[in-house]
């Protein structure tokens, strides 16, 4: 099969070598976890426990009704010490349940369920009950993607194995160590959707995994219909829209969702979590992540309980050159937010924690736009960033909307390639807010 890709994009230095070959290290002994109540994209949920309650690993501790909600589970056994706002990886304070470990290894998992024979409703309920959200970054509730309206027929399930963000290697390791779980997760999702075709989209910097994945598929009866597609290594291939276009050639319509072009995309980590939820009845309570960066003395691939404070991993699990750290990122360097400290919990969607040194974290002063057009060619959404930037600088929101500011996926490729280091994506984020605010105002005025 030929190597496919999308148009545009860039190739930032991968810097994956630090953690590429390292097995995932399982961390079990954390003294406490700080579990943010809201870790998904959607309606907020409420704690089900109160201070002083004793909880078991796997027990549901927060939930609410509503389509766009997923519950949260205790990731260690122990006592609820506090329920209070804490700093989350999105740089905001959010309500969090703090559990102190009692050292026991008791669990309260769901009963195992055969995802290949249960009903569709049972499968969706299980995925929701297990608290599964998109593990690639956005934290979109996984079950919602699996329940498209009847007028949106789905014909393809895609496993996002691009891992296009530099530094991160956790998905790669997961596929190396548990390829069968990925296949099982995909099979369950395909069955729930009534889809016979599945594709694992793998960037060719991980082409060594192709054979292994293919034999994992071939050796399982439910692997039928699943193939591996190699993709040219390029950022932002792991963007849902870009991945769909690379694999199928289809373009998700502006303002639409993957289901509009018959696709459902999940990160490989999400498929693994789904497989765990059926095989072991285990909710999404452990998170694999890559810890790296030049200021991290012990780059590693880790599996930690959700809610583990990164600061609690120091110094037993990871060591940091505190003098050298200039930037702490949750996620990858292209889209991950920078945080003011690392007393921050690992969430369901935390794919990595990076400790960058002075050289890696270098920021540049914004220069004048010389209209070189690099951003125009790099923008995988074909949004003419240079012109969009001008429109927003002139506060011309109508033109910005016309050019397509609302279609920006905020991948940051434009800012990355700009030789004048203009804060393009940063301005587009603000622009999106301004356009939304303007629309709200117009709607209010029309309503009166």
């Amino acid at each position, binding site marked *: 099969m030929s190597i496919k890709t999308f148009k545009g994009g860039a190739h930032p230095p991968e810097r994956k070598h630090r953690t590429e070959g390292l097995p995932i290290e399982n961390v079990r002994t954390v003294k406490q976890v700080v579990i943010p109540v809201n870790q998904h994209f959607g309606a907020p949920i409420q704690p089900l426990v109160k201070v002083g309650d004793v909880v078991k690993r796997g027990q549901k501790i927060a939930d609410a009704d509503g389509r766009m909600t997923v519950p949260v589970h205790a990731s260690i056994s122990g006592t609820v010490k506090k329920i209070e706002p804490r700093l989350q990886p999105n740089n905001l304070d959010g309500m969090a349940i703090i559990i102190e470990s009692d050292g026991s290894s008791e669990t309260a998992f769901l009963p195992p369920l055969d995802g290949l024979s249960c009903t569709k409703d049972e499968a969706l309920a299980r995925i929701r009950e297990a608290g599964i959200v998109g593990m690639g970054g956005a934290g979109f509730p996984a079950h919602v993607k699996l329940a498209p309206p009847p007028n949106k027929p789905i014909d393809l399930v895609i496993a996002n194995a691009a891992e296009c963000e530099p530094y991160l290697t956790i998905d790669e390791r997961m596929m190396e160590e548990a390829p069968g779980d990925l296949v099982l997760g995909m099979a369950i999702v395909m069955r729930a959707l009534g889809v016979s075709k599945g594709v694992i989209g793998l960037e060719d910097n991980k082409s060594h995994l192709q054979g292994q994945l293919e034999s994992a598929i071939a050796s399982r009866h439910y692997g039928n219909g699943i193939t591996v597609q190699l993709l040219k290594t390029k950022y932002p291939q792991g963007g849902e*829209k870009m991945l769909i276009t690379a694999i199928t050639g289809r373009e*998700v319509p502006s303002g*639409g969702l993957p289901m509009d072009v*018959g696709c459902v995309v999940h990160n490989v980590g999400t498929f693994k979590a789904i497989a765990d939820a059926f095989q072991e009845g285990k909710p999404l309570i452990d998170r694999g992540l890559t810890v790296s960066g030049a200021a991290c003395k012990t780059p590693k691939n880790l599996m930690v309980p959700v809610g583990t404070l990164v600061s609690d991993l120091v110094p037993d699990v990871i060591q940091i050159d505190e003098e050298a750290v200039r930037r702490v990122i949750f996620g990858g360097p292209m889209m991950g937010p920078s945080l003011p400290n690392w007393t921050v919990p690992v969430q369901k969607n935390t794919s990595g924690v990076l400790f960058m040194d002075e050289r890696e974290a270098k920021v540049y002063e914004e220069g004048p736009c*010389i*209209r070189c057009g690099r951003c125009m060619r790099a923008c995988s959404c074909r949004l003419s960033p*240079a012109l969009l930037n001008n429109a927003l600088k002139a506060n011309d929101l109508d033109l910005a909307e016309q050019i397509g500011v609302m279609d920006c996926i905020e991948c940051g490729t434009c800012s990355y390639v700009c030789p004048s*280091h203009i804060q393009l994506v940063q301005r587009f984020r603000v622009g999106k807010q301004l356009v939304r605010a303007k629309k709200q105002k117009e709607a209010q005025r029309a309503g009166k």
Partner: protein
Amino acid sequence: MPANNLLLSSSPSSYTRGDVRKIMLAVIIALMPSTVYGVVLFGVPALGVILVSVFSAVAAEALFRLATKQDPRIGDLSAVVTGLLVALISPPSLPLWMAALGAVAAVIFAKEFFGGLGANPFNPALIGRAILVMSFPAAMTTWHAPFGALTDATTMATPLNVVKLGGSVADVGAGFVERGLASAADYNSMLWTLFVGNRAGCIGESSILLILVGFAFLLALRVVQIVTPLAMVGTTFLLSWLLGMDPVFGVLSGGVVFGAVFMATDYVSTPVTPLGKLIFGVGAGAITTIIRRFGGFPEGVTYGILIMNAIAPFLDKLRVKKYGFVPPAKPAKEAGK
């Protein structure tokens, strides 16, 4: 506990190491073959024009920014490029003070008054040249044969001049033989001489071969896109042929290749959209040829590009369709596919 000097800017946190200075440096390197050969052709006077022009451009920018209390920008090398370009599109016998004036005009009038780097609507070097042509028509149209002292005895018409004054393409070849620039008067020898660049003309415009070397370098580094130069030269070729002129001679003889490679690819004064670039190239080539055929000047590259510069902002409206574009007339009806 953790350090309090952490950077907190919005993502991305990784940036390319490329910058404006490196781009300008690439352009300067790409201009070097033509520059050096210009000095080989026309000797010390050409070198003088080049050095004075570059120095004047850099000094003018620095002094202007000092006087207007703006940060100096010598480091980005854009003034060096402007000064070098002004020199390369000037005749080698240009008095040095005129070269200085042209460079200063290019930097101050065409660039700094509009806001400096990135803000000039017109190509600064061409504005510098246009001002010089209007102010000193004689000095700007005095040409010399290469490989000799620039004296009255060595003046020689440019190939386009020969044709403009009623001569034929064969006359150009005969002229080359007379001056020892071609071994034979046949058509192919004449074209070869033009391609190598051993002819009267501006300092840097004559050697098509070396311009193409620079162009290949810029393309390899992805500093410029091929579309504008290709469209401009292609249009010149086609339209010359349609208007009954020798198209190969037309492309090789004047400044159209130099203009297409180094002026029509100027980022700031040309469109950023792909379709805009194509139309820009076609328009510049067409105007160049029309001026050559019907206008008063033998060469039209300067005005071909300057006129298209004027409509570049309009051409920027020809954006590519965004990803997932849905025509507004029938909103998302076929979205399911």
